[in-house]
């Protein structure tokens, strides 16, 4: 995966540390990388993802910004046009909407409309998803809005190792990348049982992370588990919820962690579904028009004659994220189990 001489020794990291390390490594290698966003400077970010970077690289390379997401992205685009490689943070993905016009009409369109005269090599980091009692405006999963937009890549890691390698690839990429961080698993892989003690990354193999530079290629999925009974497509927090549920139920599922939604690793998906003949899609975002719809459409277009049962979507419900009923909303083990029963029933 790594394929890089500069990866160096591996150490234990949680996902926040891995993300921090990716920026640290890239800032040291490339003087054009700058980090910006609300509270990312002296304080190091409300989730501490940028901790220590300002002290190390100085205020002109790591700085706090005014609270205007339009401005954060607009300014980052201008910096990118100058020749820098900005890594703006949007404090919560729920607050990306004010910047949507700059992201969609500008960052995503700049290369095309100028025939590559100007480009926007920016990586927008943002914590997303629920499971932390954040209420409606600290829990959303807006990836489905961006995957519909031509010209922007969407990346979602599920482990510290991938988070660092993917973030490095995203920063090095010459196109705008939306890098969504599943905040529920910043500190440890979440098995979906909110009422059990939480785990940290120390026991997980992908919590072992090289200290130096390595890449995880964008556009490549990971097969988390090989199996024959069905294919499960998932990403982010859901990779762990699905894996754990499958293990508990003892089902021989093939679990694919998409890692990049656009561009998608269609080959991995197609190969797997053609093998298993059944497909389940799991995401936390609301159902209607979520990325699961696209996955379902693609799978049936490409694997129609191999499908033995309808593709199942297990997703967040089509409501805002309800504060107190968070765990009934969350597509956790109960809902995945029921969907599996349905999908495997004949």
């Amino acid at each position, binding site marked *: 995966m790594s394929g890089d001489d500069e990866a160096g020794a591996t150490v234990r990291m949680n996902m926040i540390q891995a993300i921090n390390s990716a920026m640290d490594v890239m800032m040291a290698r490339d003087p054009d990388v700058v980090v910006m966003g*609300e*509270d990312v*400077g*002296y*304080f190091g970010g*409300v989730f501490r993802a940028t901790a220590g970077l300002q002290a190390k690289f100085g*205020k*002109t390379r790591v*700085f*706090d*910004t*005014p*609270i*205007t*997401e*339009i*401005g954060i992205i607009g300014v980052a685009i201008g910096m990118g046009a*100058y*020749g820098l490689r900005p890594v703006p943070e949007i404090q919560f993905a*729920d*607050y990306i*909407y*004010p910047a949507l016009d700059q992201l969609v009409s500008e960052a995503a369109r700049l290369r095309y409309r100028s025939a590559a005269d100007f480009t926007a090599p920016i990586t927008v980091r943002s914590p997303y998803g629920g499971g932390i*009692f*954040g*209420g*409606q*405006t*600290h829990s959303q999963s807006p990836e489905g809005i961006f995957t519909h937009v031509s010209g922007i890549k969407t990346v979602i890691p599920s482990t510290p190792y991938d988070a660092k390698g993917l973030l490095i690839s995203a920063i090095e990429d010459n196109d705008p990348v939306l890098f969504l961080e599943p905040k529920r698993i910043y500190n440890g892989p979440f098995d979906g049982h909110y009422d059990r003690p939480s785990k940290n990354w120390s026991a997980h193999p992908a919590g072992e992370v090289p200290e130096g530079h390595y890449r995880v290629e964008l556009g490549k999925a990971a097969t988390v588990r090989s199996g024959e009974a069905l294919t499960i497509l998932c990403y982010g927090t859901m990779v762990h919820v699905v894996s754990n549920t499958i293990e508990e139920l003892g089902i021989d599922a093939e679990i694919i962690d998409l890692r990049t939604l656009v561009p998608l690793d269609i080959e991995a998906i197609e190969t797997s579904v053609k093998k298993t003949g059944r497909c389940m899609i799991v995401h936390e975002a609301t*159902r*209607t028009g979520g990325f699961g719809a696209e996955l379902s459409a693609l799978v049936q277009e490409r694997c129609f004659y191999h499908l033995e049962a309808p593709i199942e979507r297990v997703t967040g*419900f*089509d*409501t*805002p994220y*309800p*504060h*107190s*009923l968070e765990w*009934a*909303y969350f597509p956790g083990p*109960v*809902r995945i*189990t*029921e969907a599996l*029963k349905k999908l495997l029933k004949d």
Partner: protein
Amino acid sequence: MDAPRANLPPLSLHVPEPKFRPGDEADFSDVDVPPAGSARRPDSAEPAANFHELAYTLIRVLDDAGQAVGPWNPRLDAQALRKMLRSMAMVRAFDERMFRAQRQGKTSFYMKSTGEEAIAVAATMALAADDMCFPSYRQQGILITRGYPLVTMMNQIYSNKGDPLQGRQLPIMYSAKDHGFFSISGNLATQYPQAVGWAMASAAKGDTRIAATWCGEGSTAEGDFHSALTFATVYRAPVILNVVNNQWAISSFSGFAGAEATTFAARAVGYGIAGLRVDGNDALAVYAATQWAAERARTNQGPTLIEHFTYRAEGHSTSDDPTAYRSAGEPNAWPLGDPVRRLKEHLIALGEWDEERHAAQDLELAEEVKRAQKEAEKNGILGHGMHQPFETMFEGVFEEMPWHLKEQSEQMIAERKAAGI
């Protein structure tokens, strides 16, 4: 990138830095505090262009001796002053208790308004009871001043069975239309254009009610703030636009919202809107400025922006530890003092209050809050089972539930049943 031209000095980027960081001694002696009573009070019908200076000074009524002085003195009677003091002290007592409740794991989140109680309470008293408020998350004082039940506030904070918002919202994101309190949003500054729209509607209908809105100085950077001021000036909307400059936006000092270059009241000047800069820890100044702005709005003279200069004495929220980014000495060194103490001393100076009564009132308020808390906890606390029925999650997305939500609701119930939970 081309090399810099040799014959020109290199450019450099200015990145603001607050004066004090952890470990530094806080010293606010360079903060310009004009004497109470020194700002002129124009007629509320005067054109905004005539009093730009009020955007650059501090309107203050209470002097260091606790006297109310100067043209902005609202001359409130003692009863009104005592109500004001009581509401402010109640806000503080409520905040203390709920902060602790969060720490005890009874809910997920809380936000105090310590040091900023005057801004919500005094402004509310200067408004009519049916004027509509579009607050940010730090104006719980509006509800308390208007007599909204503490128990209901707590029910919301606990997301319990008694929560009028059915457990759907983050704690403190109240909504209380019958108390003229608009639903609080998690997204900053969105309420600003909404307040202007409400005010425009009221004007279009020939109503007499006006709107008031609040946002933090950090939030003024949002595009919504600008849209709101633009609409407000264009249509001369009867709205009061409050900017609570408590100098911090989570860990970012006000320099990142533009405070190094000018005041926030000066934003008003840029649109030709009336702008007042007020000592936000002076309840009488807040009252007087709001009253003036309300009169202006009600007589079709249009909007007023009021910057309330204050200090966020505590952390941003229960998720925040301010000693990680600012001097621990700041809250005490802050020169404009504590709004509760200042109003108390004024009442004492008037001979209308004393320390004993104040101490007794504090006890009484703490008791009242505690009683309310017990009452609220009968309805449950967050995560302890006494929540709304699961099906309610699907209600209220639309007025009528469409088929897909009905299906999802049925599916959820069936799945939970199948799983035996």
